[in-house]
């Protein structure tokens, strides 16, 4: 598994397409309603999945652990929403923390970790 993180609009999905040759059809995009589907070659907007988890009282890291065998060969993309100030709202606070914890867990599991800054990739691992 490879992990791509970075801020909003920085070109994370474009990097995945360029680096791994993915088309849009290869990429599953998480939604506030739809959650996540494991098994896709690439999973984008994981921060939408963590937000859904927070709202439904679920632990994103535990869900990933349960499905461990299903994402071993995937490229996972997540926005690093955990860098800014602590938000006032409780659900935004929980969202920020759970996304940070999930990315830390996945960084440990990943073969490669990339961060995208202004469209430029930086190898973190």
């Amino acid at each position: 598994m490879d992990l791509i993180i970075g801020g909003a609009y920085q070109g994370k999905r474009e990097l995945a397409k360029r680096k791994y040759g993915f088309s849009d059809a290869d990429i599953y995009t998480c939604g506030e309603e739809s959650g996540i589907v494991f098994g896709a070659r690439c999973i984008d907007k994981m921060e939408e999945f963590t937000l859904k988890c927070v709202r439904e009282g679920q632990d994103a890291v535990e869900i990933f652990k349960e499905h461990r065998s299903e994402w071993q060969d995937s490229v996972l993309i997540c926005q690093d929403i955990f860098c800014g100030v602590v938000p006032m709202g409780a659900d935004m606070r929980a969202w920020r923390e759970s996304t940070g914890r999930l990315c830390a867990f996945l960084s440990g599991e990943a073969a490669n970790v990339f961060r995208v800054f202004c469209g430029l990739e930086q190898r973190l691992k």
Partner: protein
Amino acid sequence: MNVLISGGCKNGKTAFAQEIALKLSGSGRRYYVATMLAFDDEDRARVERHIKERAGLGFETIEQPRNISACLDRAGPDGTFLIDSVTALLLNEMFQDIDATEADPGAVPRCREGLLKITANAGNAVFVSDYIYSDAARYDAFTENYRASLAALDRTLAEACDTVIELCAGNVIFHKGGLAL
């Protein structure tokens, strides 16, 4: 040489940009291209502080809140231009006056064209932008539009510049190129 500097707020981006511009310019002319429009006392205090901080560094100040490449016509393209900041330039181009409620959709292409004119024609240019993309918040469409637009300009500049630097708590991270100063 063209350099893009971004990073979080109050990281020393302007001071670092001045240092780079000073070195790049050598004995040539150097221009501080100020893009911020001061609307209140807080803004004016910020402008005053920046003016004090660059006193004695030999910058000629050009106020260019919109139509950014006009600074080349006003100064002549030779010399080193410090554009501070892309963030304020975009804001001024998107909202032509303080009461505007709709963002001008022509702002991004206009800024892009002007900025690329500078990277192509200026002796040297140093651009300062702001990294506003990594926080846990759901913004309104107005703010999201601004963030997406600034990111588009940042990425255009990152591609066009020789060197791209992120300042993190005053520390320098090179994302592209280097500084042979």
